[in-house]
């Protein structure tokens, strides 16, 4: 083979190693606990709602604190978290459910059986909206400030302690 052709994989490899090195030694490497989504905005594209005809977009959620909660009828741990969400009642906080990879009939059935704590429920059947949030499972929750920035992210079931210390403490 021509030397030039062989030089190509070598240079690509070198570039790749440099890139990995930069990525690993990045000064703002976040500590294990903090999510990479802090400071990011919600996805911009509009998304269907579970029981309303008009789609919702991120701008509709601005103007108040929003707790976005990713849940599904197939998610066993969500039932553990659910009573804590039902008990959550703060005048400055709006609870928005994101129903993920779920059939509407199942989601509605689940909400009927367990109670509906949400002011609004988004329906993301194929997951394309939540993929932007880096969601890897349910339940996951995001606290969003009135200007649309994510200020807290937790992957897992919210306990009363977490709600007290991480969410309520960030509200006015």
């Amino acid at each position, binding site marked *: 083979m021509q030397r030039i052709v*062989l030089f190509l994989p070598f240079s690509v490899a070198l570039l790749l190693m440099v890139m990995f090195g930069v990525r690993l030694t990045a000064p703002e490497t976040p500590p294990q606990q903090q999510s990479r989504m802090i400071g990011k905005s919600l996805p911009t594209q509009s998304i269907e709602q579970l029981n309303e005809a008009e789609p919702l977009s991120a701008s509709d959620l601005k103007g108040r604190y929003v707790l976005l909660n990713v849940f599904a009828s197939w998610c066993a741990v969500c039932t553990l978290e659910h009573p804590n969400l039902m008990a959550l009642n703060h005048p400055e906080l709006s609870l928005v459910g994101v129903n993920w990879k779920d059939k509407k009939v199942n989601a509605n059935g689940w909400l009927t059986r367990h109670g509906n704590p949400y002011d609004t429920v988004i329906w993301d059947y194929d997951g394309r909206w939540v993929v932007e949030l880096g969601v890897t499972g349910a339940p996951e929750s995001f606290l969003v400030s009135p200007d649309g920035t994510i200020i807290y992210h937790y992957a897992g079931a919210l306990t009363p302690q977490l709600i007290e210390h991480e969410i309520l403490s960030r509200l006015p």
Partner: protein
Amino acid sequence: MIATLGNLGLLSALILALIQSYPSPWRPRTLAALTCSSLWLAMLCLIWGYIASDFSIENVFLNSHEAKPLLYKITGSWGNHEGSMLLLNAILGCYGLALACKKAPYQSATTSLFNLIFLGFLGFSFFTSNPFVVLSPPPEVGQGLNPLLQDIGLALHPPILYIGYVGFSIVFASTLIHIYHHHLDQNWARFIKPWVVFSWGFLTLGIGLGSWWAYRELGWGGFWFWDPVENASLLPWLCATALVHSLLVLEKRNHLPQWTALLAILTFTLCLVGIFLVRSGILTSVHSFALDPERGMYFLAFLAIALCGSLGLLVYKSTATSANKTPFKLLSKEGSLLFNNLFLTVLCFTVLLGILYPIIIEVIYATKISVGSGFYNASFNSLSFPLLALLCIAPYLNWKHEKKLSTHLKSLAPTLLLTAIAFSWFWIQEVTLMCLLGLTLGIAVMLSTLTYLWKQTRQFKQFKTQPSSFYRMIIGHFGLGLLAFSISANSAFKQEKDLVFTLGQTHEIGQFNITLTDMHLDTGANYFTRRGIFSVQDRQNQLVTHLLPEVRYYVAEAQNTTESDIYYSLWHNLYIAMGDTEDAIEFAVRIYIQPFINLLWLACLLMTISGIWGIRSKR
């Protein structure tokens, strides 16, 4: 006490590898045997720590619990980063011993380079990921093992995968020595072929096992999610497949030495890249071990030296080769295998791009993106179709120059006819275009392989005349066609229903009537479970089977898992996974009918067999 012994074993292996890095003919077999045994001693110490629930060993404390069943105590020893690295090193030790026992060209140089690589892995284990760190005073209770890992599929998957990965280190070492000596020729090809094929076979089995576990355990009825860790194992597999075929050209016709060397280097370094991506914390995935960047830097340095060093050497020594000077025509076996190399390499880099793209974007633009299955389905699947089509005709072609293409096409006529019939039939079924292509090409590959078998053994009369490599090719290619077929068929025809059952209620799905006859609570070794008994009947109301899916709560780990239950019949699986219940009156259940999924596992097995069986035969 065991921790000290284990640590000593690891340390002695490190020193022995250091000694063997210096090329010398002094008792290579003894040294290799000592290295291998000290690592297995260390591994056994760790396993013993798990069996005895010795929580003074930090690794055991973090990953085990007294109540765990014995099998999962043992397999849990490699279900974490430190333990699995130790296992990897132990397997490397076995390969080192095998190398010392075989007659290899440039034996002492290859051994010393192999031991340098070994040293890199051992250093990583000993200095950054030592499983024998001791806790004092020892805790009373262990933290338990993720219940998802407490499964037989996942117990087997790492060791088998490592046997695959690690074998390529020998290929790598041998390749570099031969590049250095300008000796990329038929002898070299003959030497490394069994190592490549053996490792490839185990890699195939390892990936298949991981898929099978995901299918059974995750409750989604899926078997491949294009997760970065899954992709990290696919990369060396694609390269290794290309390597096997490139070696064929080099061995038989002394062509493509540079391609073969490049593929050999890439296969091993992609194994390293995979290990790096999964363990450095640079990627988040449901699979990845959560680690700190410091270990990542060590491994990155190791990877960079191996990758850039070897590619640099290839560039530097590229001009002088002993290759065959007579060119071959593109329409020939060499030509088709060259295309094969190209396709597989492009497929490999497509997957690599998908894995790395989020990292690249994050470094340059500081934004976070995800690459999902949409990308892979569009690119990977589309690229694999021309490759499958090529596979139908490639075995028939002559070396150097194919002049009788029309004769071969004539013998393929029945294949083409049957494929066209299949195509029309599936088209009428209104499957998607991607499934349609996958189905028909899968069938085409299987049929053309069988036709080739028929032709070469003179209508199946002369089975014994062919070398075992011929049969391995037939089995391997047939397996690949079956894989394409079963993946597409499953995707096209699977049915999924989310249903709510009350006790005694029957639902209809596919050709089955399913009744929930009982739901009760029970306890297992280290979990509580809610188990449903579903009676499955066919349309004639004959009982087919009972399925007992569970939802388990593992106490120590405070985690729920879904244990699906699957009815395996030849052509399909009936798969039941239970969801939640609020009132213990209505139960959410997800039922899948998965046609042809068993063929998928069979295809993986066939390809594994083609790699491993007959490895000792000279032909």
